[in-house]
């Protein structure tokens, strides 16, 4: 018989259904209560903070309600618009870049011998699991102007030295590159797994019909991989929106505000300059942005648990 409450077919009697539901609710409560309590407390407090001014550091007892003053101040700052733009552009650039690099890497790796492949996969995994902060340290060492290894090669090969983290556009390029480095691992793994799942006969048939390598990719592989790639891009977009650690350690949002995404702006205004209320406005904008983008993963999840 099929029980209306439990998933799928069940041989447990109806008499037990009540007991089962009680177990389910009992099991799900601690996690839900913990997450709900903490997130609602944090969110309502964040919202409240946007309307407050905390004069000396974060002394809660000296708070003052200032209405929309924080909002008007934030939006009268010229950097705010730039931060908003960066927070939109950064995830998109990172996702596209990571997809291109990851796809090419997957193409290179997919047809290697089964003995070599695990070594490749291990290498691709490495940037994914290295903490973003440590990645920032590693690349800061490479991008160093005076003794960085990148400038060392550039100076020897082309006689140029670039002030990577001290000038606006190179710094932006550098922090984006670090994220692409990391995310291309994720994209590469996903593309690789999806490519391996494709039936080989398709490509054999195509090559017998005279399709060359590029045509096979364009007309067979890409259409078949499209759904997976799309979902991976959605997940990557949301993840890149969180970028903070590596930018913090590499440039702290500078020079000027060249790499100051909303997350960095929240830190610079809210913590470094101690204006908690205004920082909270940036944080609120960022979370609203994240909630909008998380609609993608939510739809994926709902489809899976239907």
């Amino acid at each position, binding site marked *: 018989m099929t029980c209306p409450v439990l998933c799928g077919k069940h041989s447990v009697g109806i008499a037990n259904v009540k007991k089962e539901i009680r177990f389910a609710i009992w099991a799900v409560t*601690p996690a839900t209560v913990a997450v709900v309590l903490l997130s609602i407390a944090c969110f309502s407090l964040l919202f409240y903070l946007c309307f407050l001014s905390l004069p000396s550091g974060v002394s809660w007892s000296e708070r003052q309600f200032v209405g929309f003053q924080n909002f008007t101040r934030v939006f009268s700052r010229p950097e705010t618009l730039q931060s908003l733009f960066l927070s939109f552009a950064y995830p998109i650039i990172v996702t596209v870049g990571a997809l291109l690099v990851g796809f090419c*890497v997957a193409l290179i790796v997919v047809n290697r011998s089964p003995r070599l492949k695990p070594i490749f996969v291990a290498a691709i995994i490495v940037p994914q699991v290295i903490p973003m902060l440590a990645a920032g340290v590693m690349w800061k060492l490479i991008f160093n102007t005076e003794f960085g290894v990148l400038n060392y090669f550039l100076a020897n090969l082309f006689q140029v030295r670039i002030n990577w983290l001290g000038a606006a556009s190179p710094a932006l390029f550098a922090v984006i590159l670090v994220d692409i480095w990391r995310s291309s691992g994720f994209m590469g793994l996903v593309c690789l797994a999806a490519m391996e*799942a494709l039936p080989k006969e398709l490509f054999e048939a195509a090559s017998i019909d005279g399709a060359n390598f590029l045509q096979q990719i364009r007309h067979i592989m890409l259409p078949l991989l499209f759904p997976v790639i799309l979902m991976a891009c959605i997940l990557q977009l949301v993840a890149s929106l969180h970028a903070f650690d590596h930018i913090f350690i590499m440039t702290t949002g500078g020079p000027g505000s060249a790499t100051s995404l909303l997350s960095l702006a929240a830190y610079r205004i809210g913590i470094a300059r101690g204006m908690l209320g205004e920082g909270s406005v940036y944080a609120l904008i960022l979370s609203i942005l994240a909630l909008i983008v998380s609609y993608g993963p939510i739809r994926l999840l709902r489809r899976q648990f239907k």
Partner: protein
Amino acid sequence: MKIQKLFSSMALVFLCIGVFVWYLFPVYYTVATSLKPRVYVYDPSKWIFTPSLDGYKAALSTGVLSRMGISMVVAGVTTVSSLFIGSLAAYAIARFRFPFRMTVLTLFIMVRYIPPISLIFPLLIISKILHLFDTVWILIMAYHLLAITFTVLMMSGFFKSIPESLEEAAMLDGCSRLGAFLHITLPVAAGGLFATTVFVFIYAWSEFTYAMFLTAFQARTWPTTLSRFMGIRGVEWGPLTATTTMGILPVLLLTLVVRRYIIQGLTFGLLEVEK
């Protein structure tokens, strides 16, 4: 024809080497710099040198090990407790249709995607009010938010893939639902459970944003020490790279153990890629 073939296979070799360089060079270069004698740290032309432990000695003298001890405590407590709470909830979500099931799931994934920097400000206030600022407890509390949601999302995928008939058989033989969960389902899902444990541990071990702004002195974890080596007097690359190496070494080793689950860990099974 023969030359063309040789040419293309050489191009392939170069591409393969390129893949390794792209992914591994930053890691290699950091580890190599950490092993350079102090005089060579600022010299990129030095590729071959006798390794020295100068950087490590300098790092250890600043008390990095005790910071790692704190990280270990925070990560350990977070992992154990969120794994327990989270996998119970994951089991219920995977097996039963109870009221608000989808709402709970949606909420979990929304919380999963809130940027940590946004929660810094309210957590800072909460920590001051509850007098938890600069203690491990505020960190453990903050990490639970993500650790629990991650565990629920990841483990419910694993539990869903285990056939229910296994539990039914046990329950017909007189096992309770909890007994069936503990004795049948959990052991079958052991691989996934272990992978989840490792991912949660890695997260709590290397988390930076909360640790940086919710602690000041007492409860600093090892990632925060990295920014300390970037003082006003310039960056002390020797100890900095040494600390980085010590910090990522356990991460890399643990990842090697659970590499089969890495895609699931990154997407919590949201992507259905057959493997």
